């Protein structure tokens, strides 16, 4: 199925086209969301929301970019919205219970173990993922899309409506910030 056929099928709400879209992009979307959210359950939820959004908004897709570019844009937006809501919940966490009904601590950040990380790098990767959450959104986006999703500067620039040099600059700043945070870690 060509991209044009896929888009036409989606606009006509054809189930086959929708299934084709999911088969083609589910891994990319899920991997990207997991890089942002660092939680499997949330990642599945948000990945589903991305495809639901595509289903409802396909008629507003003007085809000025690739379908994948548009899909990544929606993915990034959904991820950032979710992270914003999480931060708001944590901010008001002090007025809710600290423990749930099973006496487990709520609102506690847990170390994220990305399943695709090489075995000998898992501990370092956990630290990196923790620090990644502390980066500004713009730096976090380019880092996740480049280092986790493996997109090129050109692809990221198209997704973010920016230039390749801006992407490069953001990535360099992200690395500098991460280095500073690594140096400030307790020994």
């Amino acid at each position: 199925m060509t991209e044009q056929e896929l888009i036409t099928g989606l606009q006509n709400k054809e189930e086959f086209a929708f299934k084709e879209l999911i088969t083609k992009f589910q891994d990319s979307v899920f991997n990207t969301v997991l890089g942002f959210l660092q939680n499997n359950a949330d990642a599945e939820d948000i990945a589903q929301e991305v495809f639901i959004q595509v289903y409802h908004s396909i008629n507003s897709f003007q085809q000025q970019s690739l379908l994948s570019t548009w899909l990544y844009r929606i993915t990034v937006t959904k991820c950032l919205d979710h992270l914003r809501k999480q931060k708001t919940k944590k901010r008001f966490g002090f007025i809710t219970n600290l423990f749930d009904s099973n006496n487990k601590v709520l609102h506690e950040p847990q170390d994220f173990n990305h399943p695709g990380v090489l075995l000998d790098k898992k501990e370092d990767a956990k630290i990196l993922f923790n620090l990644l959450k502390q980066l500004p959104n713009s730096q976090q986006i380019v880092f996740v899309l480049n280092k986790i999703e493996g997109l090129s500067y050109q692809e990221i620039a198209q997704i973010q409506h920016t230039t390749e040099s801006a992407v490069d600059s953001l990535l360099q700043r992200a690395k500098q910030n991460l280095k500073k945070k690594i140096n400030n870690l307790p020994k």
Partner: protein
Amino acid sequence: MKKEDNILNSLTGLQKTKAPDFFYTHLIGKMQQQFILEKRVSFSLRPVFSTLILCVLIGINIFSLTQFSKKTPTKSFPQTNQSVTIDVFAAAYNMNAETIYE
């Protein structure tokens, strides 16, 4: 320096994760649930339905008010030929008329 590099390069060779099993099935299930919920909400917001509910509520209120006014007896004070003089008033409060004027 080495620690920094180790951490920053820890994603080298990262394998992309795959979506969970039955992702499509779960997604379709979620969409169907959302569709059913949207149908229920949109039905209850239809003008005809809302107007009907409003009329029923107004009808119940009118009925309740009419029933309430029927049951409640109107209070009327007994007619007496006796004029209420200051002495009668004073007597009611165990006083005499002079006390009242003081």
